[in-house]
């Protein structure tokens, strides 16, 4: 998800009809430049080298999204969906969900937190690009989000509070305050009313990640353990 605005001009994007590294390429109607959709980076044409600003978005179940945003509207495509396609549940099995990871982007650098690593821990307190962050996996919403762990110049460390297998709240070790895992709002304790700053983070297929971010970090692997593809790319002039 990104802003279609660049240097004060709004661009309209369409599908090129072909893919790069298993994901589609788009072009803007105004200049015909071609963009990689995952990184929102222009790779060909007059705008080559430019990047669009990423927007904060979540891949989440409808039930949970509606509860968080009761006044939400829903995109309605012109296509008439059959009962069968509507009932087709994306990521209906756990194994298919675990193929995803949370791609956190800080200062044009990226780090991946695979759901496989996130799910058992629920919260990962980490520091990336000098930014203390908390990557959170909420099983009841099948959603992962990332928050900056700084509040009033104080860095917090979160631990999960689960109830019947669901992630109920986050508790910070420093003050013992309780936070909503999906809202990032402090609901109980001395920091009540405070809000955590969200980070740009979106779900991505783990197997696709290396194609777009050959230098990106993957949580749980050492920086030296980069894919052979990334190494070959670097070797190329």
């Amino acid at each position, binding site marked *: 998800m990104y802003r279609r605005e660049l240097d004060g001009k709004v661009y309209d994007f369409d599908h090129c009809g072909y893919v790069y590294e298993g994901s589609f390429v788009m072009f803007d*109607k105004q200049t015909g430049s071609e963009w990689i959709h995952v990184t929102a980076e222009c790779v060909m044409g007059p705008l080559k080298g430019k990047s669009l600003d990423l927007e904060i978005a979540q891949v989440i179940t409808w039930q949970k999204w509606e509860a968080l945003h009761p006044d939400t509207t829903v995109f309605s495509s012109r296509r008439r969906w059959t009962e069968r396609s509507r009932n087709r549940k994306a990521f209906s099995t756990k194994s298919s969900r675990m193929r995803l990871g949370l791609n956190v982007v800080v200062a044009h650098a990226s780090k991946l937190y695979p759901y496989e690593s996130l799910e058992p821990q629920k919260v990962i307190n980490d520091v990336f690009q000098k930014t203390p962050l908390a990557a959170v996996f909420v099983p009841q919403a099948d959603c992962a989000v990332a928050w900056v762990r700084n509040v009033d110049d104080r860095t917090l460390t979160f631990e999960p509070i689960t109830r019947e297998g669901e992630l109920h709240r986050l508790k910070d070790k420093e003050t013992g305050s309780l936070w909503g895992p999906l809202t990032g709002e402090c609901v109980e304790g001395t920091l009540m009313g405070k809000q955590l700053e969200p980070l740009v983070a979106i779900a991505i297929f783990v197997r696709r990640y290396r194609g777009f971010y050959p230098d990106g970090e993957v949580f749980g692997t050492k920086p030296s353990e980069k894919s052979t593809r990334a190494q070959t790319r670097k070797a190329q002039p």
Partner: protein
Amino acid sequence: MKFATIPVLLLGLILTGVKDARGQDVYQEYARWWKQRQEKKPIAMNKDGSRKGYFGVQFKPKSISAAEAEESGLVQGPTFVLGVSIGKQSRAYPLYAIGELQNDTVGGVPIAASW
């Protein structure tokens, strides 16, 4: 039946390893020619001269209320959506319906919805 002719012919060429007059594998030659053809393929254009896009990308998509969406069966409890909230406006894009990309405006901000 005629649609099956080309694949069957190609399979035959692969299996038998038919060589041309220069002693090169016919199938390999065909594969090389097809690759070159694809690379040289011109960009498809619309009648008005603009570049042709694919997969039903919309530029002014319609949005409906949550109640309407639930009533029409567009979304149900476990349906996965891509949710975005900008300013005071929030919008959900059902993953099965979003296709590849949609141009939209949420909270006065022009966005490209994709994941």
